């Protein structure tokens, strides 16, 4: 259908056609309509002071980590503590919209290879400076060798109106483990598109968490495929949205082999006119027996005009499985509020306590205590600014 539509300014400048709501996957995020600015790939010089200030604004600034700094899509050799590495030229899921935009933008980034247990987390801080409606393309690969383990943080901060398109590939060898934490706290005017593509060999383990609180428009895709048995994945996320923010997460978890476990937990807080969307699909292929797959998405709407849409999907072709999903949407529980107030806690405090507890349940999936604390602090700050 979209081929018949005239190109928009954004499509012209990006050199791609954007999907609209007629496409099932983009039903609630009509990219063609929502991306209006003529974002284009360009070289934007940044001032040192701006870079340093933005890097310091990462919610994880206090976490002891090795840092890689990406400024306007370009690896900053001076500030980075790790080398870039070589990125494989092959792009997976080439027909995916976000991967496609990345290719058009000639996205670059770093390649992280972990052979043993990394002692410190690696934080990749993505900084966008200066408006200029630039389109930033980023592409990273993370590979973890057999029985190795690593913690990788991806942080997105910035100022002004820009588009950030990022693709991260994760490949885990047998028994490998990665804890990936992403904080999307982009400029409130920005558009953030991302796709994380992960493959897990036997007994590998993925712990993935995403905080979504920045950007005006967010679309974050995740595609996870189990390639070996007894692997285990947990994908969690928290939305803290306000104003007219729009955030859409679409996850596809593909149980292609037996005996794997997947867990998804999303806690979405929407205030003002914000709109949160969660689409999760669990596929269990024929013969993927003994699959254990569960997903849950919970939405807390703090204002009458806030909105939440969900599509938790199961596609199951094997019988000996335990799969399920749960989804809820609503405002703060009135019984909870009454109980707290009956114990003497005034309404605003009671609200904050309950919201923080609601959002924080997803933080609990993170093992690194320091990172967890940083996220709690971020949530507290967000609540205080409400």
């Amino acid at each position, binding site marked *: 259908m979209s081929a018949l539509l005239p190109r928009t300014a954004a499509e012209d400048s990006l050199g791609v056609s954007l999907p609209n709501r007629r496409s099932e996957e983009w039903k609630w995020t009509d990219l063609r309509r929502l991306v209006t600015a003529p974002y284009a790939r360009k070289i934007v010089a940044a001032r040192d002071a701006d870079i340093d200030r933005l890097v310091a604004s990462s919610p994880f600034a206090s976490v002891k980590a090795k840092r890689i700094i990406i400024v306007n899509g370009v690896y900053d050799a001076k500030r980075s503590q790790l080398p870039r590495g070589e990125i494989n030229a092959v792009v997976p899921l080439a027909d995916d919209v976000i991967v496609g935009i990345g290719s058009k933008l000639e996205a670059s980034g770093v390649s992280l290879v972990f052979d043993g247990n990394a002692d410190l987390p690696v934080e990749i801080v993505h900084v966008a400076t200066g408006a200029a409606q630039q389109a930033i393309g980023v592409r990273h690969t993370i590979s973890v060798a057999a029985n190795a383990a690593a913690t990788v943080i991806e942080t997105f901060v910035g100022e002004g109106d820009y588009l950030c398109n990022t693709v991260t590939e994760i490949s885990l060898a047998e028994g490998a483990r990665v804890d990936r934490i992403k904080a999307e706290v982009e400029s409130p005017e920005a558009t953030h598109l991302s796709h994380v593509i992960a493959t897990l060999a036997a007994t590998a383990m993925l712990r993935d968490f995403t905080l979504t609180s920045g950007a005006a428009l967010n679309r974050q895709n995740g595609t996870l495929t189990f390639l070996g048995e007894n692997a285990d994945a947990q994908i969690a996320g928290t939305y803290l949205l306000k104003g007219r923010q729009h955030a859409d997460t679409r996850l596809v978890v593909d149980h292609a082999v037996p005996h794997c476990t997947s867990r998804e937990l999303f806690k979405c807080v929407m205030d003002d006119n914000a709109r949160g969307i969660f689409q999760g699909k669990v596929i269990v292929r024929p013969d993927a027996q003994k699959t254990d797959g569960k997903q849950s998405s919970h939405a807390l709407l703090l204002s009458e005009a806030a909105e939440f849409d969900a599509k938790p999907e199961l596609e199951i072709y094997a019988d000996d499985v335990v799969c399920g999903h749960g989804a809820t949407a609503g405002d703060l529980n*009135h*019984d*909870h509020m*009454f*109980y*707290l*107030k*009956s*114990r*003497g*806690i*005034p*309404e605003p*405090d*009671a609200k904050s*306590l*309950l919201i*923080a*507890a*609601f959002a*924080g*349940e997803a933080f609990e999936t993170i093992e690194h205590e320091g990172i967890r604390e940083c996220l709690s602090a971020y949530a507290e700050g967000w609540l205080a600014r409400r």
Partner: protein
Amino acid sequence: MLEINNLHVKLEDESREILKGLTLSVKPGEVHAIMGPNGSGKSTLSYVLSGREGYEVTEGSVTFKGEDLLALEPDQRAAKGVFLAFQYPIEIPGVATMQFLKVALNAQRKARGQKEMSAPDFMRHVKDRAARLNVSQDMLRRPVNVGFSGGEKKRAEILQMAVLEPSLCVLDETDSGLDIDALRVVAEGVNALRSPDRAMIVITHYQRLLDYIVPDKVHVLSDGKIVRTGGKELALELEEKGYADYVVKAA
């Protein structure tokens, strides 16, 4: 301390009255038991005293320490010293019991113009009270009432009461769902809080609890009104004869 005068209450979205002119006076140091058949309005009374939404007072007044209680928000009532031990304590995921107690205690202290309690003082304050009520450290770390057994929930309610030190305690069917050992622990916890400047209203269907928490007065609530008042022996009489005399036949 508490003066309830000709109280009429209905549910906000129904026309049927639940309390139909209830009058009750409670002085400091007294323990009053309110007994009555199911549907007589016992729980409604507890919710109206603590300020739950959904109830509408159509007539009458409730004065607490000389102040109009009905004009206050639930948290203001708590700060003034009203405490309700819930029949069905609410589960709150994600909020640790210890954190909850601390926030509640300090919110009340702040409202009363007192200084917040320091963390070490608070720990001490909770620790021995918890031990007396058989509340483990593990329970204190867990989210409020989440995954607690029936007995644990009731013990946790009494612990909150002990920690917050209210001046009026309303116990709504605190005995329901408890076995005899759990009942004893809870009753001992309540008795330990009896003091000349603290009043209690014990709402119960059965006399059993009153063997342990001996009341000064017993009231029979039937069809939204107190229809009889007596001493502790009235509870025994009810146990023997049942509520048959007090159950209003539905028209």
